[in-house]
């Protein structure tokens, strides 16, 4: 029985060698997606007809020697907070106005289609990309393929579950404080939050205007790079889009860590009280492996990392409250309780609190610049820190207030806008994935991908498949 490719890069090769067609690949992925809706529940909507039409077009293009690049014929999922012309957008909320989604594709979706990607379905998420799933809203709740009693993370929960579960090869997440990297870490996949402004967020329901990103999620860093190459670029429809050239994301990806300088800000990122020992030792072991492969580790510091967490929260909740205030007043009962309660806190931040958070941003940015130093003069190429402080928690016993109090390692990169990629770094004693972030200088995504890819060539954490996905992989391709 033929198996399916594990990665976008592998699938692209198979499609070009004739080992598989896009229709066969898409049919097999559709079968997996439907078969797991009662368990993984990754999708809000599986778009069978749209996906198959896209796959037929891709195959026709291959037959006509038209090659739009490595995403041609590849099934890609879209978080259901990003507009698609052929399906509604729910934001996983009963509050969402259906009229909002009656529009053309979001810019990123348009770019993916132009590159030949097969738009496959709308992926589950935490309501409006915040909070925690509330079963009373009636939406499916995505589960973690490594342990169905655990969250895949949020808010891009469906994307994390679907990629890790082998239902799609890549998907779009969104990230305001860690919503791409958190699910990537908990699900054992790779997820990129590129530099703020690198990818248009036009066509995405906002959470925090000045923090939101749409990012790629896939099994490998290389696959994320392939996706980002297509997604990136200036878009005048997004006020935050930056008009800067898009580099070749794979240009410096040579599998080598020789000469790479890695900054390690141990204070805060390796010392906060809620950091699991499993996570700490796993990321330290990854750093040791990278040093053994030729990288140089350099101790650096970001003195106000903890304050950055507060500034990100005030910014995110403040901006979200401004967007949601009318609905919070007129139809609060339609929100899931955890989402509503999270947004309510926005009423308690003053305008001065918001401005103070924005005044902190340049300070943190300056501290990051000092941590990176000057390239070629003792500076570092990337920073490496844990992604999450623990492995994926169980749904049972969730305490949103305790979650809010815990220290985090992802929001600071939304606040500063720096590119940050989460990749698998190992597993806990209990067999759950642990991720680490590779953080780069502004608009220097290629070096982030280079370092992450080199680590993934040293290890196979990213290719370790959850048992549930292994069972699915045993199933035959459709005739």
């Amino acid at each position, binding site marked *: 029985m033929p198996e399916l490719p594990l990665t976008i890069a592998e699938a692209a090769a198979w499609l070009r060698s004739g080992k598989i067609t896009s229709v066969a690949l898409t049919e097999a992925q559709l079968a997996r997606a439907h078969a797991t809706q009662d368990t993984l529940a990754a999708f809000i909507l599986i778009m069978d007809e749209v996906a198959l039409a896209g796959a037929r077009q891709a195959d026709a293009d291959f037959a006509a020697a038209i090659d739009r690049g490595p995403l041609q014929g590849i099934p890609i999922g879209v978080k259901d907070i990003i507009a698609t012309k052929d399906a509604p957008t729910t934001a996983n909320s009963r509050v969402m106005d259906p009229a909002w989604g009656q529009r053309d594709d979001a810019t990123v979706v348009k770019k993916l289609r132009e590159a030949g990607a097969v738009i496959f379905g709308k992926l589950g998420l935490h309501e409006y990309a915040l909070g925690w799933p509330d079963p009373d809203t009636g939406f499916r709740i995505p589960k973690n393929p490594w342990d169905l009693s655990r969250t895949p993370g949020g808010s891009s929960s469906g994307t994390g579950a679907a990629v890790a579960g082998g239902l799609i090869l890549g998907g779009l997440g969104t990230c305001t404080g860690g919503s791409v990297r958190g699910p990537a870490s908990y699900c054992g996949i790779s997820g990129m939050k590129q530099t703020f402004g690198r990818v248009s967020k036009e066509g995405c329901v906002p959470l925090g205007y*000045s923090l939101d990103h749409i990012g790629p999620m896939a099994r490998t860093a290389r696959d994320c790079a392939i996706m980002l190459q297509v997604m990136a670029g200036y878009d*005048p429809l997004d*006020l935050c889009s930056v008009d800067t050239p898009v580099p070749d994301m794979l240009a410096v990806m040579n599998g080598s860590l020789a000469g790479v300088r890695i900054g390690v800000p141990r204070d805060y990122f390796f010392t906060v009280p809620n950091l699991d020992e499993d996570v700490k030792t796993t990321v330290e072991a990854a750093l040791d492996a990278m040093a053994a492969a030729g990288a140089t580790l350099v101790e650096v510091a970001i003195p*106000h990392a*903890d*304050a950055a967490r*507060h*500034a990100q*929260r*005030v910014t995110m909740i403040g901006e979200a409250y401004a967007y949601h*205030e009318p609905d*919070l*007043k007129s139809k*609060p009962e339609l929100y899931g309780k955890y989402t*509503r*309660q999270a947004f*309510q*806190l926005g*009423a*308690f*931040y*003053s305008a001065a*609190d918001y*401005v*103070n*958070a*924005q*005044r*902190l*941003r*340049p*300070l943190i*940015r300056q501290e990051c610049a000092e941590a990176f130093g000057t390239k070629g003069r003792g500076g570092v190429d990337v920073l490496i820190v844990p992604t999450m402080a623990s492995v994926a928690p169980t749904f049972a016993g969730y305490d949103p*207030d305790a979650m809010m*109090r815990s220290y985090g390692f992802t929001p600071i990169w939304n606040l500063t806008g720096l590119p940050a990629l989460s990749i698998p770094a190992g597993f806990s004693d209990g067999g759950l994935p642990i991720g680490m972030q590779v953080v780069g200088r502004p608009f220097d995504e290629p070096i982030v991908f280079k370092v992450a890819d080199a680590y993934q060539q040293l290890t196979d954490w990213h290719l370790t498949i959850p048992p549930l996905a292994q069972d699915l992989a045993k199933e035959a391709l459709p005739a």
Partner: protein
Amino acid sequence: MSDTTNTADAAAQVDLVLARTGLPVTPEERERLIRLYPMIAEWTGALRLPETRYAEPALIYPATFDR
């Protein structure tokens, strides 16, 4: 945000904000907000740093007709 941390003052502050904003909350949500109020005050207080006393906020508005 003041540094008020005792429950009575927290309740008064929460009620003031709810009255001013007109935000509807359930009794359980009001109790939660009262519980969280000292933490919110502490966190927003943490944003008032001597280092940023005269810093410009990271707010940019492009004065152009092009975007």
